[in-house]
């Protein structure tokens, strides 16, 4: 037994399936911050796709599953503002009218943090070890920004890396057009939105685009590649953990 805080890593379905590197990067950052890391095998998805499609029943079932798997830890950390917001802000509402579960959900929600804000706000991490060098630009994904107030935290940790130069894009707070199922339900509108985003990204001249959400990153990376752009795309955790040996998202 240690007196380190225990952290359950909720890796999120997209990172689990598409970008395991993000899971490993998150694991390293959490351990380096002095926590005891756990990765429950009973995790799948936070249920947001069901929740945002109006399917409360499945959303609730998935919420129960996540709560059961994670409520025993001191903290629950996810490398995604959007999934963390689902766990933290939306779970309790799913159990309205069911006092026992609502209380459980509230207790669970109080433990949930998005990865980077967990490092800076809870573990008071001032700087991380990473040899990464290059010019980066950072996109503020919507849920993390507006539901969890994540804006300064990633910039703080990036700013503390000696090799990193941050080149801010115009309108970094504007949506990239991903929106979960929105991007496949309304592809043309989504495309119009992401086109504006890739233009502001390329204007920065940065080598690497970073953000804290795989969904948004896959959207932007997919568009940049389709346009023939050269900007590399990575999750911010990869850079912070110095794990950039894996090829960038949708790149060689």
């Amino acid at each position, binding site marked *: 037994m240690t007196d380190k805080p225990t952290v359950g890593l909720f890796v999120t379905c997209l990172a689990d399936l*598409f970008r395991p590197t993000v899971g490993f990067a998150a694991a390293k950052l959490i351990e380096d911050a002095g926590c005891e890391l756990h990765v429950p095998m009973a995790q799948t998805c936070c249920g947001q796709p069901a929740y945002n499609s109006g399917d409360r029943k499945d959303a609730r079932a998935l919420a129960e599953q996540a709560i059961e798997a994670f409520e025993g830890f001191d903290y629950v950390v996810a490398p995604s503002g959007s999934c963390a917001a689902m766990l933290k802000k939306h779970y309790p509402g799913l159990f309205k009218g069911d006092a026992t579960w609502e209380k459980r959900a509230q207790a669970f929600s109080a433990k949930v943090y998005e990865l980077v804000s967990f490092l800076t706000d809870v573990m008071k991490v001032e700087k991380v070890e990473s040899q990464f060098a290059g010019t980066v630009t950072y996109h503020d994904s*919507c849920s993390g920004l507006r539901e969890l107030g994540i804006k300064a935290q990633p910039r703080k940790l990036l700013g503390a890396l000696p090799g990193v130069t941050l080149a801010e894009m115009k309108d970094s707070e504007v949506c990239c057009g991903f929106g979960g199922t929105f991007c496949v*339900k*309304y592809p043309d509108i989504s495309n119009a939105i992401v086109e504006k985003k890739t233009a502001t990204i390329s204007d920065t001249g940065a080598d690497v685009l970073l953000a804290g959400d795989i969904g948004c990153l896959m959207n932007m990376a997919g568009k940049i590649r389709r346009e023939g752009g050269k900007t590399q795309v990575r999750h911010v955790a990869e850079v912070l953990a110095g794990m950039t040996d894996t090829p960038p998202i949708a790149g060689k």
Partner: protein
Amino acid sequence: MQITTPNFKENATRALNDAPLQKALKNVEIGFIAKRLAAVDALPEFEQLRDNARDIKNHTLAHLDLYLEEYEKKVIASGGHVHFAETAEDARAIILDICRKRNAKTVTKGKSMITEEIGLNDFFEKNGITPVETDLGEYIIQLRGETPSHIIAPAVHLNKDQVEADFRRVHTHLPADRDLTEHEALLNEARLVLRQRYFEADVGITGANFLVAETGSSVIVTNEGNGDLTQTLGKCHVVVASLEKLVPTLNDCSQILRVLARSATGQDMSVYTTFSTGPKRAEDPDGPEEYHVVLLDNGRTAMLGTEFQEMLRCIRCGACMNHCPVYHAVGGHAYGAVYPGPMGAVLTPSLSGIEVGGHLPNASTFCGRCESVCPMRIPLPKMMRHWREREFEKHLTPTAARYGLKFWAFFARRPKLYRAAVSVAMPLLSWLGGSSRRIHSLPLADGWTKHREMPAPEGKTFLQAWAEKQAREAGR
């Protein structure tokens, strides 16, 4: 108006390919946002004012019956008339009746979204009455036979050269070689043409930004002063407003006014804020002989006590659409309903039914920027989600999406089965990505690959790789 919301997708695609529209929409994205931000930054208590504004409306909605009664009493005491209209049809009939009694041929109109909601102009024309829009934007779209594409800037979808062409087409009595290159010139020309119409009008119709229970006053805010001329020069002033415009007191009204113009246009106050209380009194130099208020319900009381009640706090400032990436992309007409943007996405299904308005609450990325700027703190994404829930419950969600979701949820709810499935599927998908690490087109994912590459997964899932790593380390 002709509701075309069920064709939202087609409307949107057309809008995306409409070059002049795309040019005009840039103004929304650049102009409104920066101006609002400057106004908000200049007022330290702005966030507190938003809370107050929200609380005032919440209180009013909780006691709507009492305030309505009080308001009606005060209007009558000041010599005016109040008419309750349950539906759009009722409202039209009441207004026509008032106009008929005055034998009205021409009616001037200040800007009013409620008259758009009840389709008043078309109805007037069918009944031999000429409606004259006096707000510049409304005047322009009336000339073009269009509907507003924005709730405070009805002609925001147009560029100056288009307006110039319309003026030249319609104002043929003016010299053909006149110079209309400046915005001012267009405004002056509209003023000149409209000036005469005010005097000819038998009835002047305005909307209301607020109805004050304490005094029985209706309040309008404008930047052109056209509303004032409409309501004072006509012999009869008809206010058409929906019931949720009510506030208890003048003090409440002035608190909300402090967030209204700042959120809308970034002004501290609109140029004109006008309070009307009853008809002309004996000692007044000007004013209408008659003063009527037509109070429209049209589905609003049915929203009370539901998860959509908070929408009734809306003060129609337009900030939500000004900050909406979807609105920026397609403009207001694509929504195919009276109210566009995020507020329209919540209201349209309330007013026209989810069967008709279903696209709109779905056509949102839930980026939440609307809620972050809404002066009344209306949780717009949450209410759009509620509409999606209603749709799902009623089995109105498109079949493919519904089954796709159910199929996915079946696995996601069974972690062991899910693990087995994804540990086969992901390496396969990864292999499809080849050496380029991306997939150019993928069956069942054409919504994605139509416009972008699908990033190839790395191979093994994280949990698979993690478990293997743990096992390796344990075995060492």
